[in-house]
């Protein structure tokens, strides 16, 4: 089996074991991110070529966490925090710069992976780094991992009918005859409540409303029967009054097909409604992680607190006061990440150590982690 890179499998297995133990991970973990990094080098200016320096966007900068089977795991943060890059890197749409992604596929996919020559690296987790690097491996994983994009207007090819758009994944993977594919397309449309399906198969995206288009995006993601779905801001471009309908649909489909979601959003109030755990990202790192209610009701990291304070609510009395958001300045560029704790220039509780040392994750209550010098590990 030709491999582009050699991986130190023992080291990875040890790292996985150690990390999952530290995080007190349960037995139903399906995905593990181990010190994951995704960097984008920028095009060099002349000065940079001459001096040999290079600007790098550190979009994901050492991220470690696990996702349980059947969970809705939220990655929340503002634009530029790296959440979209994280989602795409985890499922192989972007190359991994450093770190590891471990995934436990369902049996038929695991068998298919082994037929391709891959072996689990730790328990029944496969090392996605090497699988994604392999063309056949990557294609195989599309049957296990999929993505729902944010933009119902941009992510559907305007020159294809709905039938063509939905059948495409089946065509690419050589699944079924044209008649069988049509049947699957119709069932998919029924799944996302676009009924009767006959009304939709020959239409073009522009003939549908935003909400209907997003249902097509969801249907398309499910055509190959995946188990792990990254939902990248799936409702933020829809009117508020129909967002919940799409989310409800996603929940029903999760139940029906046993899905696990990685739910990316900037809207914490929305995350609260459907997510089990929330990870708050800032400039490429997870700064806080915990059960949803804990994060919402008892945020610990100064950034999470600021985010929460900034969330608007439909309370007309608010017009009589200024909104106090405990934060300074603006998000810096991910090219020039501040030293020490990357949040320190904006933090109202900044201390000297924050400007020089990167804080480490501390568990402040069961399952609730914060990366902040205000909290020190009990040694």
């Amino acid at each position, binding site marked *: 089996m030709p491999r582009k890179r050699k991986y130190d499998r023992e080291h990875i297995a040890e790292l996985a074991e150690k990390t999952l133990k530290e995080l007190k991970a349960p037995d139903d973990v399906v995905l593990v991110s181990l010190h994951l990094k995704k960097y984008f080098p920028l095009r060099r200016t002349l000065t940079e070529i001459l001096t040999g320096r290079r600007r790098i966007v550190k979009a994901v900068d050492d991220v470690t966490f696990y996702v349980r089977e059947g969970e809705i795991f939220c990655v929340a943060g503002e634009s530029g925090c790296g959440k979209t890059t994280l989602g795409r890197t985890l499922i192989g749409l972007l190359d991994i710069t450093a770190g590891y992604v471990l995934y436990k596929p369902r049996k038929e996919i695991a068998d298919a992976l082994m037929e391709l020559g891959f072996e689990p690296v730790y328990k029944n987790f496969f090392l996605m780094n090497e699988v994604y690097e392999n063309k056949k491996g990557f294609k195989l994983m599309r049957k296990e991992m999929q993505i729902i994009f944010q933009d119902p207007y941009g992510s559907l090819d305007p020159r294809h009918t709905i039938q063509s758009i939905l059948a495409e994944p089946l065509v690419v993977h050589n699944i079924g005859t044209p008649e069988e594919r049509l049947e699957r397309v119709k069932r998919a449309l029924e799944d996302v409540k676009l009924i009767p399906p006959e009304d939709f198969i020959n239409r073009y995206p522009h003939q549908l409303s935003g909400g209907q288009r997003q249902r097509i995006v969801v249907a398309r993601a499910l055509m190959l029967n995946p188990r792990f779905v990254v939902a990248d801001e799936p409702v933020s471009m829809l009117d*508020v009054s129909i967002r*919940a309908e799409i989310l409800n649909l996603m929940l029903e489909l999760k139940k029906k097909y046993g899905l696990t979601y990685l739910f990316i959003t900037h809207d914490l109030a929305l995350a609260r409604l*459907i997510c089990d755990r929330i990870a708050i990202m800032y400039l490429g790192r997870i700064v806080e992680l915990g059960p949803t209610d804990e994060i919402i009701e008892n945020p610990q990291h100064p950034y999470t607190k600021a985010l929460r304070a900034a969330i608007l*609510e439909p309370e007309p009395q608010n*017009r009589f006061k200024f909104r106090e*958001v405990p934060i300074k300045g603006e998000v810096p560029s991910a090219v020039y990440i501040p030293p020490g704790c990357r949040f320190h220039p904006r933090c109202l509780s900044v201390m000297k150590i924050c400007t020089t040392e990167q804080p480490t994750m501390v568990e402040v209550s069961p399952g609730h982690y914060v990366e902040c010098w205000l909290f020190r590990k009990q040694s």
Partner: protein
Amino acid sequence: MSSPLLKIENLRVYYYSLRGIVKAVDNVSLEVNRGEVLGLAGESGCGKSTLGYSLLRLVPPPGRIIGGRILFDGNNILEWPEEKIRREYRWKKVSMIFQGAMNVLNPVKTVGDQIAEIFLVHLPDKFTKKEALEKAKELLEMVGIDPRRVKNYPHEFSGGMKQRVVIAMALALNPDLVIADEPTTALDVVVQAQIINLLKKLKKERNMSIILISHDLSLIAEMSDKVAIMYAGKIVEYGISDYVYNNPLHPYTQGLIRSIPRLKGPKELVWIPGQPPDLRTPPAGCRFHPRCSHATDLCRKEEPPMIEVEPNHSVACWLYAKK
């Protein structure tokens, strides 16, 4: 209080497109007093942006204002010649913060030049180039940007700062009324809070009136004294903010408010089934009836009038008509 600063009476703005007439604003009546913020809430395609443009007579063709009056300080500006609108009204009395505003800054001109341009174009005899640039610096400071940045180009600013520049430009000639069309869309929640604080501060300092147009009812609540809920080209509910939010009358308003995710309380997913109608062929009778769980035959046949249910709170819904 004296007469309102702005009175919109039975306004109709239709788009005459090749595929039919889009009745974007269909018999809308509203009022804004001095120093007051009117929130115009509605979802995509309800006509709220078109309403905003019509107040500046900037409705793009094939749109046309075909009926009603817009009274600014008692004068029907729809009767004014274009020259007068340009010389006396637009930007001086009423200005606008456009949707997606940060993308309308000219990328090849400095921010200072773009702000200065306002003075040079609208008040050509009163300002030299140097003086206009000085005003630009003052305006930047007013919106919380270092005045030395007049010589920076738009791409050197973050999204939030570009929005501040656009706000500065809207306020340059000290208008009585500013129309803010989705002023914080595409801005992060923290930046949004900062921009809102800025608008609140400026409103207070200048006793400005604002028409805040948004689909975000939480944003509307954050700033508005009065709220008008728009659906399919019509105003369905209108009143003092507290009344509308605490006692929403129209089923659409009720649905909208209930579908906002909250940080406290039950975790329920609430939505309004269906979608807004095509404004070329809106439903007969009440335009909301296909999505309304209370719809009756009357709703399907006849359009409900605006009914005052309590002082300063009106609703266009047959549920509230006296028997």
